[in-house]
């Protein structure tokens, strides 16, 4: 592999991560927030796989696989919570669910 290219992969992952973070911070629809979290998961996975290629070591792949599994679990739970909130309110806005106030 082109030696400079790995840095490119990791930098790309950083950019996708940052875009996901921006979405998480500025969007108010819980569905979109959840999708942005998926973006950030995937950015992390890209790093793992890039490094696995660099080291010739499969452990990065294993870790990515576990991340994918956990992400699936997280989406399932997250969507369930969204459905629950939708049942109680007519419109859902992340800022409306502010009952954690101290």
């Amino acid at each position: 592999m082109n030696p400079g290219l790995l840095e490119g992969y990791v930098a790309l992952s950083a950019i996708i991560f940052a875009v996901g973070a921006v979405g998480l911070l500025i969007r108010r629809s819980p569905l979109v927030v959840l999708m942005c979290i998926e973006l950030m998961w995937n950015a992390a996975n890209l790093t793992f796989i890039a490094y696995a290629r660099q080291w010739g070591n499969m452990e990065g792949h294993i870790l990515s696989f576990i991340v994918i599994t956990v992400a699936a679990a997280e989406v399932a739970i997250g969507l369930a919570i969204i459905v629950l909130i939708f049942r109680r309110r007519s419109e859902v806005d992340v800022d409306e669910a502010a009952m954690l106030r101290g």
Partner: protein
Amino acid sequence: MESTTLVWIMLLPLLGSAIIGVGRKGLSRNAAGWLGSLVVAVSFVLTLQAMGQLPATGVPLRQSLFVWGQSLPFELHVGLMADALTLWWLLVVTGVGFLIHVYSIGYMADDKGFARFFAELNYFIFSMALLVLADNFVGLLVGWANVGFASFLLIGFWTEKAEARAAANKALLINIAGESAMVVALALMVREFGSLAYAEIFSQASGATPGIVTAISLLLLVGIVTKSAQLPLHTWLPDAMQGPTPVSALIHAATMVTAGVYLVIRAFPLFSASPVAMQTVAVIGALSALFGAIVATRQFDIKRVLAYSTMSQLGYMLMGAGVGAYAASAFHFFTHAFFKALLFLGAGMISHHLSGEQDIRKMGGLGRQLPFVYWTFLAGVLAISGAPGFAGFFSKEEILAAALHEGHVGLWLIGVVTAGLTAYYMARLFILIFGGEASETESNHVHRGRGGVMGFPVAVLAVASTLSGLIAIPGITQVPGTYLAPVFARFGHEAVHVDSFGFPVILVLGMAAIGFIVGLKLFGPSGQGRARAQRSLQRRLGGPVANAFYLDDLYVWGAASIGRWAKVGALRVQSGFVRRYALTFFAGFAAFVFYFLLL
């Protein structure tokens, strides 16, 4: 030398606590009380046996238990260790502990939490035994925290009393603050010595970085100050008197509060490697001695007088340890345990007689009604005042003489003034309770018939308060000094000791005599003190002395202000908006990336 006895000394009270605690519904009162007393008595006998096993060379008895923390950069071999110092403490803990258990059978007879009381008392004895038997700082800290928790349980024993609950919380909070400092000290020890075992740390102490040793000692001192109720963190001790009187006698006078003194003596290689720390210990001790004595002169609750007096006497012990007179300090602990427990138990009998009254302004003329209490209490008063021949005389004089011998004239002077004040407030306490006319408070005869079970421990303690000083008459007997000498010799030290008190003893005695006579005159039949004191019943006492120099109010105010301020701040941060939380999170994340990857 291996010895399983040590394990039993510690485990028997725990076993008793478990049995009484679990079976408290099924056990009869007598069974719970006597079982609780019995296990402590057996521990006492085993302690005596261990004293017999202890080789004259001073090599400690050991019992290794298990290896803790194998994943840490070092291994900690947890075990029990008993040298002369440990056994010295255990002797008092189990001995006085047994007497107070027996006393409690009578004192608590009508309490609905009778069995719970004994379970908690036994748990305390176990924790205290663990504290002194540990052969490493982790074990010490575990015991230290457990005695604190036992103290919390017992101060708040009467859970229906709001004051008792508040006092228990206060004691626990202040003690945990001290423990936190000790945890930091332990972390520093790991860093500096790579170990937490006494033997390894103490043998390296003199060669360690002076700054670190000072830091460790001062951090330990924070814990010591909280546990032994020294300035400025003493405020929990007077409030702790909300607990039942046997608890005040055992935990908050005779044993637990002396854990701080024990730690100074146990960790003497650390402290003596740091002149700053030693100086601080001595000065804090002397100031606390004076402070406690001053405040005690204007208290009217019998137990509060005794509480401040405990603070004052603990100050003497720390002062002694701070000037290097470890054996004298341990000796004063020994005698103090007897006479202070005696005074508290006497106070318990008095307030029992007066249906729970504790205000000495409402007492008087009890000498004729309670002759037994009168004579035993007198023994305690004379012992604490340092009357020649009584126990307190020898131990106190030894500390003062050692301070003077080491050239600490200022500390010595403070000690002398304190001795005078001590005699004064004890005389005042005694004459207000027993002298004068019988007051209108109705005596309560319900408790007659249990006199034996309460009287026996008091009688034993009275004899001990009178005679136990004779084991260290300068130039004649030297029991504490010679017995404890191997503890210090192991690490190449020798405790400061004096062969004779010399002429300054006259000065101390003179001060005490003046204080005693002034107290008797002022509050006796011819003095104005009693009348004036009784007039003050109507109003809240003013003045800095009666209010312990407002330190407590200052802390309450400070804590409340910080709490209010923190609440305002926390409410602003805790907005409930998840996106704001996420923003904060990312800001922190950016800061971490900046710090670790770019700087």
